[in-house]
């Protein structure tokens, strides 16, 4: 605690003056982008200062790659002689960006709770900036997490079976899916009365979708009804498309383009449902 801060000195510079008026048309769009970037920057700075989010964005992804590779990997046998680390990457990407989304919900609900959004609403800034800035910051965080995991994966044996283009396409799909999912977490964050509730609401939705999927184990060991669910739920569809892209079509039954289309349809569908819902929810805050 500083005790050297009690003396308030007054010099010139408190005199009032009107700020720039809000423009119309194209210039207004420019403001909206600038505001979103300001909020993006603010959220990214915060992520580097909150120990929990630093952990979830750095140490946890590294730990999971190593844990699955060395602890579970030996007991799980992917199809067609694939190594477990090659099989794992798609699943662990989605698991990481998925759980990372909880941070979106928690962050938004904290902003609400602490009165920050209230202050934002009295500023001459674009209404869209809070949500746009939050989701952009989380997209940037996800890019970082995927790069980190790719590096660690490569160190422990991942060898890009379908080459760089396939891997990049799969990663882009993971990011797009994560972005669509973020809007769902934004809805949760805006609906929850506090950040603990936001967390509690997010987990039960995320957990079954991530673990009842082909993310970590081949579907052959699951009972038929579960196998059907795991294949057709959005996370299953996205992981199948990613594997088809990053490992090669022969490892996933069905054509690559078919899988990718289904995955993209899920992403677009989720975005079309959740983004308007989040915006609606945000506008209704009073």
């Amino acid at each position: 605690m500083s005790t050297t801060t009690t003396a308030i000195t007054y010099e010139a510079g408190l005199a009032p003056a009107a700020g720039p008026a809000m423009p119309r048309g194209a210039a207004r769009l420019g403001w909206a982008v600038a505001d979103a970037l300001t909020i993006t920057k603010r959220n990214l700075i915060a992520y580097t200062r909150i120990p929990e989010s630093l952990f979830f964005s750095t140490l946890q992804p590294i730990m999971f790659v190593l844990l699955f590779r060395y602890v579970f990997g030996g007991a799980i046998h992917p199809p067609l002689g694939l190594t477990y680390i090659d099989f794992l990457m798609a699943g662990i990407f989605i698991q990481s960006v998925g759980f990372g989304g909880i941070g979106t919900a928690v962050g938004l609900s904290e902003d609400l709770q602490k009165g920050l959004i209230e202050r934002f609403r009295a500023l001459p800034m674009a209404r869209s900036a809070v949500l746009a800035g939050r989701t952009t910051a989380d997209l940037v965080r996800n890019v970082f997490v995927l790069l980190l995991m790719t590096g660690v994966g490569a160190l422990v044996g991942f060898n890009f079976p379908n080459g760089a283009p396939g891997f990049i396409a799969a990663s882009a799909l993971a990011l797009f899916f994560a972005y669509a999912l973020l809007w769902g977490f934004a809805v949760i964050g805006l609906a929850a009365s506090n950040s603990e509730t936001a967390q509690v609401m997010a987990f039960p939705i995320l957990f079954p979708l991530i673990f009842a999927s082909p993310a970590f184990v081949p579907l052959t060991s699951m009972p038929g009804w579960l196998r059907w669910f795991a294949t057709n739920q959005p996370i299953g569809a996205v992981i199948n498309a990613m594997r088809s892209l990053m490992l090669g079509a022969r490892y996933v039954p069905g054509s690559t383009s078919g899988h990718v289309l289904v995955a993209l349809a899920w992403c677009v569908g989720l975005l079309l449902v959740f983004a308007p819902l989040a915006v609606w929810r945000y506008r209704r805050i009073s």
Partner: protein
Amino acid sequence: MTHAIEAHDLRKTFGGEVRALDGVSFAVEEGTIFGLLGPNGAGKTTAVRILTTILAPDSGTGLVLGHDVVAQADRVRTLIGLAGQYAAVDENLTGRENLTMVGRLNHLARDVVAKRATELLEQFGLSDAGDRPLKTYSGGMRRRLDVAAALVARPKVLFLDEPTTGLDPHSRVDVWGMIDHLVEEGTSVLLTTQYLEEADTLARDIAVVDHGRVIAEGTPAQLKADLGATVLDVGLADPELARRAASILGSVGAKSPTVVGSTVELPVDDGPRIAIEVLRLLDQNALVPTTFRIREPSLDDVFMALTGKRTEADEEEATSIPTNGRHRRRREPSVAGTSDGGAR
């Protein structure tokens, strides 16, 4: 003439049940401090939220420098600054980063914002702490930063929602000095407070709100004049003696005296002259005052007279302080019209 702020018959009900504002009207002259005074839950914050465009009223009109807070909300937001009760700042950012963010969201140029942030940190005595995350700040420092953030864009109209609630007395005086200074520079201020002293010290005009209505309006002096010009406080050794003194002094003052513990409170029109009379009567009856004070009626006296209850800040004292005046409950019998009734 354009007012800094005008509220016309503002009404707001939450969830169809809680009537937060029930027809509130007032006007704030440019370059002055206007105090919205009332207890917790009186509707002060709701009024501020409507006038700062955060909340739409159910009915009624709010104007800031002539601009409608609903229809011209965008324009209004460029003219106002808001500092709230809960110091709405990002605790993960440093003081400087917070100020910069608010400046950028006001669309000020990057170099202007940088200069302004340094300037404000200095003015608010936060230069040393400016590059530390807010998590490390004390409550008073956060509140100062919150006010500083409200000033980044040099607003013409400043809303301060209970700026000193929860602050220690020293920080409170700091904030008062800052508010006074802003008004000297030409800013208009709407201040909400539950501290009567604060409104009395700072505000040129006051509206007293309770249950979503303005129940009195005027300058602090006008409000206090409603109670008589002066109050004589006569302290005695114990409550029994005080009751005797009250009965002796029954017809001396402008209104009947009240006994508060072992003190007699006597509203009078001409304090010093009546004081002689009071001391003479006490002496004749062999009553020796332990304390003797001539004071202006406090705004708390006014609030009590208007609402029949103490303000939040004084609630713990209220149990031991009985009341006087037309609308007050009487906890101690006061005797009127028998100047020698209790004398022997």
